[in-house]
């Protein structure tokens, strides 16, 4: 098992920042680490990278304790950190050299990464003269220079424009395809949903949801019906126990009943066809990660509040 965190716990005084976290990444790909602010994601990452010692538990890479395994990390922190007054290429070379790369290799890697992310023209400029998006690219390059095996990206898309977001997305997919292990920490649930095969949802240091995202969502069953059909169809829906959830410009979303939702939807579809109201779109959907997140964190917060 390449990455295995077992019963990882960290306390700061009386406060438990991470409690009994178990996490495994058996194969390359993207793993989602999600949670509210103060959930313990950053503390987990710091323990994982050996920046903070764990109070209890182990973090292993191929069965060897981290960080003594010689694992090549790449870490892009949430708060961007580069030397603003220093030239781009120079600081990248410094980061690469700190990671033990030979000078010639480091120079080649810097050149290649700058070209890959389309910022080679800024190589000899001070970082402070770059736009925020380009500074973020420099930060990402500093993470990738040494060809890491394990990559941890903390909110990689925040503050990026759509073009740069797409560039970052392509890059993450490319790295996943290359067999890298990527841990993605993000508040953007759509991003996590798009990339992550497995997730861990944390709240106040505790793991409140974990596992294969498809299985998690499948466990909820279909909870919504998205319908694009004539207005009469919308009127008919209520007769089948479908509750209007959201009206969009060209479609309507209904919430399915918790029990027998699929059967009700099927009956509704048959009725539509019988009435010759052909829907342009009739989509039964599982809950989004965003909805699962809200539900889980909400109930966890409620439990916490009740306990308090």
């Amino acid at each position, binding site marked *: 098992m390449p990455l295995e965190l077992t019963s990882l716990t960290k306390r700061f005084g009386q406060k438990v920042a991470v409690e009994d976290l178990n996490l495994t990444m058996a194969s390359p790909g993207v793993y989602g680490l999600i949670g509210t602010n103060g959930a313990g994601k950053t503390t987990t990452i710091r323990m994982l990278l050996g920046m903070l010692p764990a109070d209890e538990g182990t973090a292993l890479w191929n069965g060897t304790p981290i960080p003594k395994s010689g694992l090549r990390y790449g870490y892009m922190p949430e*708060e961007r950190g580069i030397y603003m007054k220093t030239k781009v290429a120079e600081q990248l070379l410094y980061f690469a050299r700190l990671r033990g790369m030979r000078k010639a290799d480091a120079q080649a890697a810097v050149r290649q990464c700058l070209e890959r992310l389309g910022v080679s023209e800024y190589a000899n400029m001070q970082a402070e003269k770059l736009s925020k998006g380009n500074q973020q690219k420099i930060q990402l390059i500093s993470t990738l220079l040494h060809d890491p095996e394990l990559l941890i990206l903390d909110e990689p898309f925040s503050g990026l424009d759509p073009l740069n977001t797409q560039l970052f997305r392509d890059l993450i997919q490319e790295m996943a395809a290359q067999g890298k292990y990527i841990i993605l920490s993000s508040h953007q649930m759509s991003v996590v949903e798009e990339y992550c095969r497995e997730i861990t949802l944390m709240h106040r240091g505790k793991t409140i949801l974990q596992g294969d995202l498809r299985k998690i969502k499948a466990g909820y069953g279909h909870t919504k019906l998205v319908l694009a059909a004539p207005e009469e169809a919308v009127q008919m829906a209520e007769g089948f126990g479908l509750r209007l959830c959201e009206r969009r410009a060209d479609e309507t979303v209904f919430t399915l009943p918790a029990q027998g939702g699929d059967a009700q939807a099927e009956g509704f579809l048959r009725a539509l066809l019988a009435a010759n109201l052909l829907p342009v779109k009739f989509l039964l959907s599982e809950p989004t990660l965003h909805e699962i997140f809200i539900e889980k964190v909400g109930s966890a917060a409620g439990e916490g509040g009740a306990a308090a």
Partner: protein
Amino acid sequence: MKQVLTAAAFTFKDGVRKKAFIITNIILMLVVLVACILLPKIGSGGGDLLAGENSSYGAGLTCFLLDETGNTAIPNAELALQSAQLRVTALDSPLRLEGAKAHVRENDDAALVRILPGEDGVPLLEIYTKSMMSAYPTALLIRQLNDQYRAAQLAAYGVPDAAVMQLLPDLPLQTEYVGNDNISNMVAGGALMFLMFFAIYYYGMAVAMSVATEKSSRVMETLLVSAKPGRILLGKCLGSGALGFLQFTGLLVFSVASAKLLLPAGDALPFQLPDLSLGKALLILLYFILGYALFAMLNSVCGAMVSKMEDINSAMMPVNLITVASFYGGYFANLAGGLSGGGSGGKLMLLIPFTSPFAVPYQLLSEAPDAGLLAGSLALLLAAIALVSFISMRVYAASVLHYGERLKWKDLARMVGRK
């Protein structure tokens, strides 16, 4: 070690390119050049005043002369003063005394000489100038009139003129200072102490600022993934230290070279340049390096304590106080010891690790400290550096990822204890 050197090289290069470093060096070099140009001029003012028989120092100056002895005790006094290029006005009556005094009271370039009857027939000289701070060369007046009086006396005793001419000039004189009160070396020692203090203070502060900047800009997290905190800190201290060393030694070399090229040799200077053997120079540099290491490590803790740059000054206050107190402790103990021929206070300052980097170089210039004392001082300083480095690296590692409010010293102690 490779990571330490990489961090050191980056810190060094970053520092060398800073405008502040370049401008500071230009200013310091200009100060040295100006000092080398001005010092001989200052030196030529008083040093050579009485050296020449035909001095023209009195050119353009006015001298009122009133002989009240009644028997011309100093014959040809007026001529003697005129030979020094003075404009002499002989007063023929004491009634004109007040008028002459009034003129002197208003003019810097005028003096009044009264020759009064003294005891045993030896005349008494009374000289009036505008004020104590007046630049009027009264020594010249005294010299001219003394010579004239002695020549007249010798002639009266029948001494031939040739013999009188042999007797009047002063004997050639050369003064060597071999005791503790060698003012030139004390001045040089004091100047060196100031220079070392500023270098240690400034570059120690640079370490704190650098750590705080990396923390506040969040570069620290990127760095800590790449290398252990202790290695980054060591590299940073090494790089800043190398920069300070370069500036310090560069300035010393530039000063020595400027002095050799621009300062005239010998008596033209108002002081002697200090004797600095290679051994002493190396010891001074060693103390500079060790002193820097000690204070840089202390400063690094201050940098690690804060998350925002605006908190750095208050975090550095205790270390700044220690630095300044150590400097003044070393300086004044040395000054007092040097003037009084050494004392236990001075010796103590040589041994205390915080004061020794300032006190020992001073001592090395003013006198050779006892070898045992020096060895003890070095041993204590090295031990203190090892201890402070150990604690600083632990504090740094424990606090460098702390964000939010500035850490208090007791928080640090707790964090280090936990770590």
